Structures are given as C-alpha cells and as structure tokens.
C-alpha cells in the first residue's frame, strides 16, 4: 500500500497525530456520493457491484477502525482524476524507560525488528479507545488493548489540541476557504451520537488534497460527468499539520487532568429582545458559560460562518429572518457543506481562514435549542420539523436553561 506518512516525534512528549494519505488515480467519486460514502453497503450506484465488484463494506469498516483508534477518516476526490483518503490517528510516543507494553508493536519502527521489545529510542503505540462497537464487529474483535497509561491524552477520542493548550471537547471546523471543506466520515453518515435523520442532499463537501499516484485499496468509484474542484492544498496542510503537532506536544503537560481537558462549550444566543438578552445572559453567567449574542437570523448565519458553535439558543419569532428559517439554513450547511441555501436567501458569506488546529477539521452537529413562546406558530412540532433539537419555553428560567444544557452536555 502506498501512502504518505507524516510524523513528528518529540522525544520528551507523549502523543502526536499521525496522518496518512492513501491516494489513487482511479475514476474518482462524484460529489453527491460523498455523503453516503462511508455507509455500510453503500456503493456509488446501484449497478456498481456488477461493474466493479465489492460489497460496499470496505469504507465503513475503515471508518470504524479509525474511529475506534481515536482518529478521523476523510476523503477528497476528483472525478476522472482520483481520490485521496486521509486518516489521522493519535500516536503515543514514549522512551521505553519502563517495560510496560512489551507486546506493543511500534508500527513505525524498523520492520525487521520483530522483537517488539524495542531497542529503538522511541517506542509507541496506537491506542484503542473504549467505545460501543458497531455491528460489524464482534464483541472482542478489535480491541487490542484497553485504555491504560493515559498520560494526559484526552479521553475524548475526537478532541484535538487547541492553540492555547486546552484540549477542546468539541472539535471545531474551520472553513479555510470557500471550496476547501473536508468531508468527514463520521458526520456524513450515521454517527452514534446524532439521533436526527439526515437527508442526503446533493453536493456533499469534497475536496482538499490532490490525489495522484498509484492506486491502492478498493474504493467505491463511478465515472460521472460532473467535475469537482480539487484544491491543491497538500503543502499548506503539511504546514498546518506540523504546526498542529508541535502544538500537540507543547500542550501535553497542561492536559493531565480530565477537568481541564473539557473546555466550555461555545454558545450563541439569537434573540432580538434586549430584555430577554439581558436576562438570558445573566442566567448563563450564573451557570458559568459565556455567550455570543446576535439579534436576528441573518446575523446568526453569519456568526456560524465565522465560528463554530456547540449550542445555539434560537429565538423563534424574530424580525428579518425567524428562528425556524435560520435553523433550516444552518442544517442545510451541515448536510451539504456549503452555504448555497443561505446565498439564495441573500446572505453573503464572509470568508475567513481560521488559523488554528486544523489537521482535520471535523464538524460536529450544532445543538440548536428553540426558545419559544409556545404559540401555534412556535409549537414544539414546528421546531423539531425545522431541525431544532430541543426547546425551552419562554419566559426562560434558570432551571429550564440549566436542564436543557445539561441534557446536551451529558
């Protein structure tokens, strides 16, 4: 198997990210196939198996394996050019002063050295995080080792280090420029944490790294006419990767306790009434959170374009654009990776390149809480139908807010 492996090793530090690109010069993958690519039994077309063989399980298995190991699997592709699959994995590196993990294999060490008790200067291993296993695996299949010796690496497998040294629980996405969004496997398909249904709409996010090279593993491809933009960002990615990794190393010491690994969720309040803003902010402060505030749906969309939020408190009845419509636009972006729906509503996208950790910027679904006055047009059914996750009825009390947030943070 051919691939590029970048790695940074710091002899004194414990965990780094390793990235592996597997690319081919195959038939490529059309954009609209991307959202379902990692789903079990999905192949790009109904007659794909007849033409190319396969069961449609390969990518699903890969995705689960990578995620069990605490990593991320993404894809970029250009039809008629090829595809690149990328995964990152956390890799624990340590100087073997103790004899722990004597049966661990250092996968990057000298292959000839079959004796796993390493004479190398560095020894390391990939760590499987304990997780609920998908149905593809039997109960003991893929757990090679349990989570022990957890030196400061966050227990949340999806945590990535952030520039200030605190590991964020919510992995943040950065839209680097208008056409370079990474299609993240776990967000494009069913994921264990998200319970809503996802319509697989056209135009899944593609792109990123150019793939040229020898073909490797089985990839579900199909020849189609549409062309995808493929940004040649390899160099940039590598820079960011090494930047990211050096930050990883630098922040190890600070992340020794679980508490400081879990940072505060980023919250957005969308509310036009000044008094409500004041009251809600005060309650949030009491709960220990800070919030960004915007006054209408358009501003909310712009805010989501600029930053990543974990939670949005969305007033339903608002001027300019109401909460239901705004939620629909945000969900459309989450599903398709683009803001076309917003553009057609007249919202211009402000581009901003986020310059912090973005080895792979996965996006987690934003938890949107409706704040409704419980009238007919703001009923709970209406809220859920438009993509909201939960609701709080007005007037907002401290208790309601607390329960709603705890439900999300649990």
């Amino acid at each position, binding site marked *: 198997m051919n691939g590029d492996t970048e790695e940074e090793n710091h002899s004194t530090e414990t965990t780094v990210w390793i990235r592996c690109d597997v690319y081919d010069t195959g038939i490529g993958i059309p954009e609209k196939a991307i959202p379902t690519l990692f789903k079990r039994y999905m192949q790009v077309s109904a007659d794909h198996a007849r033409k190319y063989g396969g069961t449609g399980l390969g990518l699903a298995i890969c995705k689960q394996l990578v995620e069990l190991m605490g990593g991320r699997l993404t894809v970029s592709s250009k039809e008629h050019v090829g595809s690149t699959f990328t995964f990152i994995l956390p890799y624990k590196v340590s100087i073997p002063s103790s004899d722990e993990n004597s049966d661990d294999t250092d996968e990057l060490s000298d292959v000839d050295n079959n004796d796993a008790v390493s004479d190398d200067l560095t020894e390391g291993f990939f760590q499987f995080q304990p997780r609920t296993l998908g149905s593809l695996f039997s109960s003991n299949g893929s757990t090679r080792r349990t989570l022990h010796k957890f030196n400061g690496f966050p227990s949340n497998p999806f945590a990535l280090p952030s520039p200030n040294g605190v590991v964020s629980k919510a992995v943040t996405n950065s839209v680097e420029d208008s056409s370079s969004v990474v299609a993240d496997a776990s967000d494009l398909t069913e994921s264990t944490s998200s319970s809503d249904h996802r319509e697989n709409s056209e135009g899944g996010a593609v792109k990123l790294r150019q793939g040229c090279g020898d073909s490797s593993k089985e990839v579900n491809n199909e020849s189609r006419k549409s062309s995808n933009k493929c940004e040649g960002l390899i160099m940039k990615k590598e820079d960011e990767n090494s930047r990211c990794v050096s930050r990883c190393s630098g922040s190890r010491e600070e992340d020794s306790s679980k508490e400081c690994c879990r940072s505060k969720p980023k919250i957005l309040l969308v509310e036009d*009434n*000044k*008094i*409500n803003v*004041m009251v809600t902010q*005060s*309650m949030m402060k009491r709960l220990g959170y800070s919030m960004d505030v915007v006054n209408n749906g358009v501003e909310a969309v712009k805010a989501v374009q600029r930053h990543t939020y974990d939670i949005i408190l969305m007033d339903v009845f608002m001027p300019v654009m109401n909460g239901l419509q705004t939620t629909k636009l945000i969900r459309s972006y989450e599903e398709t990776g683009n803001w076309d729906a917003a553009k057609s509503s007249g919202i211009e996208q402000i581009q901003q390149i986020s310059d912090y950790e973005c080895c792979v910027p996965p996006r987690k679904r934003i938890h949107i809480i409706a704040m409704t*006055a419980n009238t007919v047009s703001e009923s709970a059914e209406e809220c859920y139908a438009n993509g909201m996750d939960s609701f709080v009825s007005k*007037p907002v009390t401290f208790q309601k807010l607390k329960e709603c947030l705890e439900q999300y943070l649990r």
Partner: protein
Amino acid sequence: MDVGQMQRQWLDYTRSLFIEGFLDNQFLQLQQLQDENNPEFVVEVVSLFFEDSERILKDLTFALDQQGVDFKKVDAHVHQLKGSSSSVGAQRVKNACIAFRNFCEEQNVEACLRCLQQVKQEYCLVKNKLETLFRLEQQIVAAGGSIPMMELSF
C-alpha cells in the same frame, strides 16, 4: 422607621404585588440573579423594560393611528412587549398583550385600540408599583440594611 421595619414593609409590599397579580414567578428569577457580582441587576433589567416598553407603546399608538393599519407590524410590536413583560414577570401587562394579539389576528381596529388602552394602563400601574418598591429598597440600603430574599410561600 428602623431597618427591620423597612424590611418588613418591603416584604409585605412585594407579597401584595404577587397576590394582586402584578408580578409573577419570573420576577423572583430576576431577584435570584442579583448577587454581589450583580448587585443592581433587578433595577437594571426593569429600567430597560421601562424604556423599551415606552418606545413600543409609542410605536403602537402611531401604528394604530394610521389610515390603513398594518396589523402585522402592530402584532410584531405587541409580541415584543409580551416577550419583555413576560421576561421580567410583569404578569398583567403580559396578559393584556396576549389579548391584544388575538384582536390583531382578527384585524379589529376598535378592539385593538381598546387593548392598547388596557396595556398602557397595566404598564403604568406596574411601573408605579415597581418604582415604589425600588425606593423602599434604596431606603433600606441607605439605612445600612440588606434587601430580604423573597420566598414564594403563598
């Protein structure tokens, strides 16, 4: 009057506002949000409410005075007022707004004008009551006492 008496007076007066329906539980929420970090919270929020309400009432008067009444706009204003009065616990104002919105839906100008009167009246009442309450609070604090915590025990 000594501090103890003033505090009792404050308690009695506050209780009466609840019993008479001028204030509801949401007002307690505001009081509970007031602490050393935020010692003037209730006064600040309520003052903002007063400002905002007066603006809205003016806009409402103007809107209903037009030849062709824009009921959508009227409804939007009333919705705002309903929202803010609800958030500060001004129960009677909120209820008057609810009634108001029904007539907006019916596009009944006469009824709307009556509702507007009603809302203005309720607003004036609660404004006076709250200003009295705040004056009492100032006196207590000036005399070296602290404002009691309200318990909704009735």
